[in-house]
């Protein structure tokens, strides 16, 4: 089969981008669009290593100071040439105005920025952070903008993006499609397709139908039920990967009854994780074994999902002071997999005498409830947005983050110390050991029941090649080519 629209790459996505101002949002759909338009100073390669991008050369002057040298002759979509001023302006703006992404680049210290020459500049961080360069790869955080364009567009910048990337924005019908057009003065390898269309098709089965009919070249998030259909279709190719998110059931460790470690362990042991994951995801997820998803650096791949042991669970339950079980509430939001997971957990906990009431909450109310510390058990997911394990475990388990993303309100001096240390230890064996240690500790103290690491499936026409899905959800679609 050949393409119905040879000049255009049509990609079906689930959501539309919110804005194309990188510092104003932090959502996957926007990042995915921005990845086609913008570039960052540094990027991640397929193995998850940080590599140069707009910056040709990166030197770590000292623990807190980095010196970047920009590529020469990089032009923006508006014809301006990339300079150190643009880069510094961008990072400063991210820190000052980019409330959505500030937590990613949070350690930056704009006071310490220094322009060396037109292409060279220094950036300082407040403390020595080993995850800093990884953070700069984030498409919400590390994108370099053109100062002039931003200032000219003012509040409307989100709709008049100017980047250095391979495509520039041609038109955008909100909620429907974004049309991109090849940037002919692109400094890198020019993409093959003169045009790219990012279409919004919320309904999963329709994405598949349009893929089958050839109206769409690549479809994101093929539903677990359509996976076999796409696989069986000889015109199509299925690509899967495991994303960096972990779905978990958290305990509110800050108050009774789940401030009781034994109780948490008991409940963990009562749940048949592999069985549940199989039932809920139908083969499109792996049982999770720890807080760091398998494709994030320093994830301990030797770990196994926790084993079900009803007898031991009951014993622990009795030891925790609940020989006759207890009644508890489990929160989830309306995502079907989470509700399904909750339903199965409910059935399983019944076996050790724990009666679970499920409450499905609307997302905004859910977050508010977590913030107000009204929760007991809750199911949610955490995505490691940058290729550094610090992002996976620090915001979620450090006691300083209680009231923030540490929804389990877990505070443990030992774990705190390890987390603090690991984030400043330079990459290497020592850091790896620290993170292995952290993973063990968290499994033992059981603030979470680690449930699943989702596989994400992408469907593609088999006349295409060169699409490498990224576990972070923003993909280098400009690399896609026609098969020769």
């Amino acid at each position, binding site marked *: 089969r050949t393409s119905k629209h040879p000049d255009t790459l049509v990609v079906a996505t689930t959501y539309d981008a919110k804005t194309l101002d990188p510092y104003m949002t932090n959502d996957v759909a926007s990042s995915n669009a921005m990845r086609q338009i913008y570039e960052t100073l540094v990027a991640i390669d397929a193995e998850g290593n940080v590599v140069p991008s707009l910056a040709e050369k990166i030197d770590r002057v000292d623990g807190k100071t980095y010196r970047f040298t920009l590529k020469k002759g990089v032009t923006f979509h508006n014809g301006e040439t990339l300079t150190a001023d643009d880069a510094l302006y961008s990072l400063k703006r991210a820190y000052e105005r980019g409330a959505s992404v500030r937590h990613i680049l949070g350690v930056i210290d704009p006071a310490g920025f220094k322009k060396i020459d037109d292409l060279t500049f220094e950036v300082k961080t407040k403390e020595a952070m080993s995850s800093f360069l990884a953070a700069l790869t984030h498409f919400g955080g590390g994108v370099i903008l053109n100062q002039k364009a931003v200032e000219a567009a003012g509040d409307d910048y989100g709709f008049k993006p100017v980047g250095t990337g391979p495509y520039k924005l041609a038109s955008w019908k909100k909620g429907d499609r974004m049309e991109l057009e090849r940037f002919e003065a692109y400094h890198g390898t020019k993409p093959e397709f003169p045009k790219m269309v990012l279409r919004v098709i919320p309904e*999963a*089965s329709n994405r598949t139908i349009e893929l089958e009919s050839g109206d769409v070249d690549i479809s994101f998030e093929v*539903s677990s*039920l*359509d996976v076999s*259909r796409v696989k069986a279709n000889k015109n199509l190719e299925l690509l899967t990967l495991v994303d960096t998110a972990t779905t978990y059931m958290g305990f509110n460790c800050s108050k009774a009854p789940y401030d009781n470690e034994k109780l948490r362990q008991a409940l963990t042991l009562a749940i048949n994780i592999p*069985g549940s994951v*199989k*039932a809920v995801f139908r083969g499109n997820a792996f049982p999770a074994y720890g807080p760091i998803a398998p494709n994030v650096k320093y994830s301990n791949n030797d770990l196994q999902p926790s084993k079900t042991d009803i007898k031991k669970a009951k014993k622990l339950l009795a030891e925790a002071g609940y020989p006759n079980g207890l009644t508890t509430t489990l929160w989830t939001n*309306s995502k*079907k997999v989470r*509700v*399904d997971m*909750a*339903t*199965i957990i*409910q*059935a399983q906990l019944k076996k050790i005498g724990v009666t679970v*009431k*499920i*409450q*499905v*909450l*609307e997302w*905004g*109310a*859910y977050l508010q409830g977590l913030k107000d510390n009204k929760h007991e058990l809750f199911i949610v997911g955490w995505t490691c947005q940058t290729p550094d394990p610090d992002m996976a475990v620090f915001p979620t388990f450090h006691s300083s983050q209680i009231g923030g993303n540490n929804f389990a309100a877990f505070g443990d001096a030992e774990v705190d110390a390890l987390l603090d240390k690991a984030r400043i230890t330079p990459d290497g064996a020592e850091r790896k050991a620290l993170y292995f240690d952290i993973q063990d500790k968290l499994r033992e103290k059981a603030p979470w029941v680690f449930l699943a690491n989702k596989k994400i499936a992408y469907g593609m026409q088999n006349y295409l090649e060169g699409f490498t899905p990224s576990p972070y959800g923003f993909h280098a679609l400009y690399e896609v080519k026609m098969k020769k």
Partner: protein
Amino acid sequence: MQTKKNSLWGQVFGRLKKNRMAMMGLFILFALLLTALFANVIAPFPFDEQDLFATLEGPSSAHWFGTDEFGRDIFSRIIYGSRISLQVGFVAVGFSVMAGGFIGAVAGYYGGRTDNILMRLMDILLSIPQLLLAISVAASLGPGLLNLMLAVGIAAIPQYARLVRASVLSIRDQEFVEAAVSVGSSDLRIICRHILPNCMAPIIVQATLGVAFAILIAAGLSFIGLGLEPPTPEWGAMLSGGREFIRDYPYMTVFPGLAIMITILGLNFLGDGLRDALDPKLKN
């Protein structure tokens, strides 16, 4: 005096009895009621019994309507679901009919400024998205079946209010209303005893269809924290739950859809019959 009480209803029923469709409707509703009452006797399986080794099976002799993604027996869930769905449908519609009916009656009866204010309030209510309304109800009153029904009910109030207002306007000027005033009846008494019972025909048409909408809307709301905790079976929720399976396992949605349809069918047959039986113009 002879005891011939309720002879109006007796007569209405007499007329209904001669209407075959209405009797069929009545029979269907009665059967549904029995199903709901004796769900635990009829259903072959408990509604929440999971069998992870027998998920998504098509209809068979063991599972008449097949099984869902957790291996639960769909037939049993539909049987049990009748309890909740009928409750949701009837209570929500009952609530909106009563509230809407009352508002419409007051607006129509007093007319003038009262009418204007109440009807503008109804316009306001109509413009508020159901989702926002539901979230607010959930937020201020908490989750649960009752509040769910309330949220569904509130949203439908304006429709009934308008309908009743229109009927009241035509009844308000009848002399029996004036007669009631002349003997000193209070306004409330007049509205409740003299006016409302006389404008039931259009409400019946609307309400019989309204039950279907209530069930379907309630299903949508159970996913924003207003509804019923899983695994409580409910037709509308089963319908929406089967959505992603529809291409491969259509029976997951066909059966709850049929259940809703049969209910509505029964209601409409009965409603049509009732409407005709109550219509004074059709009386001898």
